[in-house]
């Protein structure tokens, strides 16, 4: 197995706060890697560092042998890294299909004038994008919502749409930021099955930030626990959940000497 993604001593400071503090991890090709931790542990910040919304203060990010520590954020999708957002960042005034087609943006290379006149080259490219988007619609079973406005869809469906939009970029690495937040038990279970399908059928590597431990146990190959921007433990889901440091971070414990 080769590491698809590698974070090497990555740190970011906001003023005096070290939101992420010398975190290193490797994600192997084809695995589901989960990041857990209490609120404010720096999980989403790590995602924002990987998708280059934030600039890291120190450290290196390597994706597929390529250093992406200073790659501009709009290039990330083209390299094969797609993400979803904790609170859903869909394009609310567009239809589901249009949202998925925006996910195809990094694969469009038709010239400006060709688009202005809608030349046959643009038409061909659009048909190709449509076919790819329809594959994702079929994969996630979203057919009945195809032409609905996102603003009119229920929350659970929007979560799946966001997953679909990320899949439309044909990613090799998928970052899922709390895929189960706001979902009920059944929908969370469904999300778990999608993630397993994405890993098995599409061969996409997944990094997931998640609070729901049953979902984490269901899909993760390895888990990393964070607190105050530092790595507490790394290993299988079982190992991490029973790790004394992790237990203490979540529920407090008898060792309170430094507090």
């Amino acid at each position, binding site marked *: 197995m080769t590491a698809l993604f590698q974070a090497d001593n990555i740190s970011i400071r906001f003023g005096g706060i070290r939101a992420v503090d010398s975190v290193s991890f490797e994600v192997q090709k084809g695995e589901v890697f989960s990041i857990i931790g209490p609120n404010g542990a720096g999980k989403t910040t790590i995602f*924002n560092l990987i*998708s280059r*919304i934030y600039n890291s203060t120190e450290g290196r990010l390597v994706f597929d042998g390529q250093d992406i520590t200073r790659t*501009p*954020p*709009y*290039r*990330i*999708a*083209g390299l094969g890294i*797609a*993400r979803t*957002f*904790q*609170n*859903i*960042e*869909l*394009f*609310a*005034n*567009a239809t589901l*299909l*249009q949202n998925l*087609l*925006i*996910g*195809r*943006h*990094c694969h*469009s290379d*038709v010239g*400006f004038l060709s*688009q*202005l*006149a*809608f030349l046959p080259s*643009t*038409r061909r*490219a*659009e*048909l190709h994008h*449509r*076919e790819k988007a*329809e594959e994702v619609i079929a994969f996630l079973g979203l057919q009945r919502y195809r032409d609905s*406005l996102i*603003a*009119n869809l229920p*929350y659970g469906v929007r979560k799946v749409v966001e997953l679909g*939009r990320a899949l439309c*970029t044909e990613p090799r690495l998928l970052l899922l930021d709390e895929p189960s937040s*706001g979902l009920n038990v059944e929908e969370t279970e469904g999300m778990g099955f999608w993630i397993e399908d994405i890993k098995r059928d599409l061969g996409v590597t997944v990094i997931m930030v998640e609070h729901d431990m049953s979902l984490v146990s269901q899909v993760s190959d390895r888990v990393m626990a964070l607190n105050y921007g530092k790595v507490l433990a790394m290993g299988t889901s079982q190992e991490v959940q029973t790790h004394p440091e992790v237990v203490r971070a979540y529920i407090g414990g008898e060792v309170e000497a430094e507090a």
Partner: protein
Amino acid sequence: MRYLFRTDYRQDLALWRHGGDLFWYGLLVVVMLVLPLLLGEFYIGELGGVFIFAIAGVALMLLVGYTGLISLGHAAFLGIGAYVNSVLLAQGVPFLVTLPAAGLFTAVCGAAIGLPTLRMSGLYLAIATLAFGSIVGTVFQKWDAVTGGFDGFAVPTPYIFGISLEGANGIYYASLAVLILCVWMSANLLRSPIGRAMVAIRDSEVSAQSMGIHLAWYKALAFAISAGMTGLAGALFAHYVRFLAPDAFDVLLSVQFVTIVFVGGLGSIHGAIFGALFVRLLPQFIAIVRDDLPFGIGRMPGLEPSLFGLVLVLVILFQPGGIYGLWQKTKHWFTAFPFKRQTAGRRQKSYAKSERLR
């Protein structure tokens, strides 16, 4: 009620959904083409003005309604287009060259103003474009070697293949042709990756970026396209007014363009055209009824701007979809009759959105 049965992805790429659409748009174009034979010169002249404002409206709609960027400086782009066209024409350059030259030059100006304002949005962008408008207005006044300063200058008559466009009919047909061209290009952009990127930037910049959309590039592009189309409108506007003076391109004109976009209906090309009809025809309507209004309201100064303001406020409060939204609701009422639901057209409340990354 018509139900669309789609069997091919190409159907979704077509400019019209079905044969009915094609028929009605075709009929509209035919009516527009024969109208000068039926109506008097005054009405044709006014309609030409509507077309010119509709071009500028479509241009601003791409920027405001689709990309979500505001501009209070579009009168300046109209002015730049008007002066470039007229100055070149006075040098003896043919109209078929000066018209696209005006569009291209204004597009470059649009990109130039777009680039430094990329980090701004909302109020700040409005103020920056407002400042740009007044700077350009001052240039028109002071650069009298080229623009004629306050005295202005008479715009030479344009010729296309030796045919004079003097008079209402000439401007009418030229504006109609450019309007159709601009609507066609806008519709093309909106069904292409560029249009989708613009909508994505409007709805969520952070996720647009994570989908691979280069924000700076597409915002500058939206500014350039919008300015370029407004420049084309400006070139026609010069011939519409026949005499260029700097005070024609003031802030009030920019506000009229914004009114077109909001009253017509944000986020639709139809809306821009409805809005242009409204903005151009309201003053005419006031002029007709002025003498019949009670209590001397008709003779009060500032009646026109206050009416514009009132309509703008009422539309934003009670009809955010604008005239086009109203039209769609009416259409829905008829197609669904008698089953229109109270909640139709209303949207779910949006959920909490993360503000952290803005």
